[in-house]
């Protein structure tokens, strides 16, 4: 029976599957690891997240993209327990994950990183790594005093050094994490997440603020996570970055999933292009001799101005 289950097939060869999944919002995946249903989160009158159904396929790199303010990070915060939704539930490998506290989500194997890196600046790089090791007896108050945690600590140190070597941070092991460059902090955060032996890694803008020279190396590390059998979900607003490494892309705008699909297909998707550039991007602009808009362009300018006014009256932040 199991052989006929499409999930089993998918799990053995995930790379073959993306073309077979329907490219539409809320598409069913052959072997989803995270399944989200009717999740909403409002801030005052603003619906930051409103997703009816979303699945993340096991073993894929799924890129979550969208313009600023699309609700990507809010969705991340909800899924990892850092924020509470107004409605909705979601499961990880069939286990309900909603309503869990952040540390409980992390212990179950869904580990996240942050947009603004949270390297623990006054701890050494090595201590950052060892901190992440799960189930340490020396981390319990009485365990710290009464048990011999040294052996476990040595094993964790060994594992930490291996990971640091892989991420080219081994020479910085004894330096304070605060002395690392922005890109190195991103690498440290990724390496630290791996110390927890996660099943799903959720990276919030892993390329943001990184020296372009390091971007390629970071992308290779993200790919390597997938090759290790992990599921990767990452947020990015730069389409180009995502195209190279994603197996699947989910596009969000104004809190909703507006499109899903293979990355090479999505860049020609009208909804996606509109979300990024606005609905009028292909219209020729006309101006008179003084530089004032005329004809259709004048109508467009009036529309944009009234939208801006409305936004300001509603107290929205235009910079977002």
């Amino acid at each position: 029976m199991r052989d006929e289950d499409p999930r089993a097939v998918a799990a053995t060869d995930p790379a073959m599957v993306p073309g077979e999944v329907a490219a539409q919002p809320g598409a069913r995946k052959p072997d989803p690891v995270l399944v989200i249903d009717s999740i909403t989160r409002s801030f005052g009158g603003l619906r930051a997240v409103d997703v009816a159904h979303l699945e993340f396929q096991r073993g894929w790199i799924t890129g979550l993209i969208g313009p600023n303010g699309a609700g990507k990070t809010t969705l991340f915060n909800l899924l990892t327990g850092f924020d509470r939704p107004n409605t909705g539930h979601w499961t990880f490998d069939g286990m309900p994950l909603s309503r869990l506290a952040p540390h409980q989500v992390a212990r179950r194997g869904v580990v996240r990183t942050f947009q603004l890196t949270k390297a623990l600046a006054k701890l050494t790089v090595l201590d950052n790594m060892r901190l992440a090791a799960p189930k340490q007896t020396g981390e319990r108050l009485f365990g710290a005093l009464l048990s011999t945690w040294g052996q476990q600590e040595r094993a964790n140190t060994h594992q930490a050094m291996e990971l640091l070597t892989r991420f080219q941070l081994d020479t910085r092991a004894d330096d304070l994490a605060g002395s690392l460059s922005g890109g190195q902090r991103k690498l440290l955060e990724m390496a630290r997440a791996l110390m927890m032996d996660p099943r799903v890694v959720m990276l919030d803008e892993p390329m943001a603020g990184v020296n372009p020279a390091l971007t390629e190396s970071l992308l290779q590390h993200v790919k390597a996570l997938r090759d290790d059998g992990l599921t990767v979900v990452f947020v990015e607003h730069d389409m180009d970055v995502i195209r190279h490494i994603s197996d699947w892309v989910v596009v969000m705008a104004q809190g909703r999933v507006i499109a899903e699909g293979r990355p090479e297909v999505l860049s020609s998707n009208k909804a996606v292009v509109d979300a990024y550039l606005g609905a009028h991007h292909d219209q020729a602009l006309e101006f008179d001799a003084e530089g004032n808009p005329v004809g259709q362009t004048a109508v467009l300018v009036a529309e944009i101005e009234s939208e801006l006014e409305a936004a300001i009256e509603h107290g929205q932040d235009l910079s977002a």
Partner: protein
Amino acid sequence: MIDVPTLLANGIAALAGPSAIFFALLAIGLNIHFGYTGLLNFGQIGFALVGGYGMGIAVRYFGLPLWSGVLVGILAGVALALLLGIPTLRLRADYLAIVTIAAAEILRLITRSTSMTNFSGGTQGLTGYGGSFRQLSPFDDGRFYEFFGVRFLGQDLWSICLGWTVVGLSLILVFLLVRSPWGRVLKAIREDEDAVKALGKNVFVYKMQALVLGGVFGAVGGIVFALTTQSLTPDFYSPPQTFFAYTALIVGGAGRVFGPVIGSMIFWFVLSITDTFLRQATAGRNPLISFIDSQDVGAIRFVLVGVALALLMMFRPQGIVGKRSEVLLDAR
């Protein structure tokens, strides 16, 4: 005109004396709270109050033996930490600061209220709980003992011995804890709570453990000091005492094992020699400093301590034993 040997002898007596011990213990607790975990407890003196009064009331009112009174004092510290921590530790750090300073004042005002006179002694204070501690003293109460020119009264010497023993044991405990993975979690929480949550640690539990542990050091400080003075008066437990303990912690170096003890010794040494110096300099027919009245000395020495603290923050923000790269209070 200035008698330097007396100046130094007074300074050293203060550095080793009961006040230095008391503030060292308060600051050891604050070091766990603030130095390692980043918790702002502005009501540490309240923990000393419940420690001292817990013991005093248990012995005087309930007639318990002294050793169980000590236990009651420690448990009172634990209870106060839980009471303050459960509602506030999930909130932002400043809420704990507000709640702790308010709680310490509430405790002081309750203790001194007339309705509590039978129980806590009210404003008249509480005495007669520590006789059995005195009786254990190997020293002659009324005699002066001299060490290298520094004189201690016999009755103080016994509590000084107890006090430094307790400080030593506390430091060993702190040392063992902060070098363990448990201590590493505390330091990580101080740096970034959310990062620690994302790494699967129950931050609330760690903050509560830290609050209780640091509060117990405060309560033990209160117990030791109450045994030294043999009397408890509510108004001693006023808010500035917490800030003197913070001063000691920051002078010594927050987030270092020995920081609070060294800081407390320096604080009392400086306070004592400025006091002695100003008294000598303003006394007599033809004083060295004529523009300060000798009655103002008590206040002016605290002004000088404040100036010294400000200078220290500017030029050595990590404290005496701190590491510059790990400085907790970055003023820039």
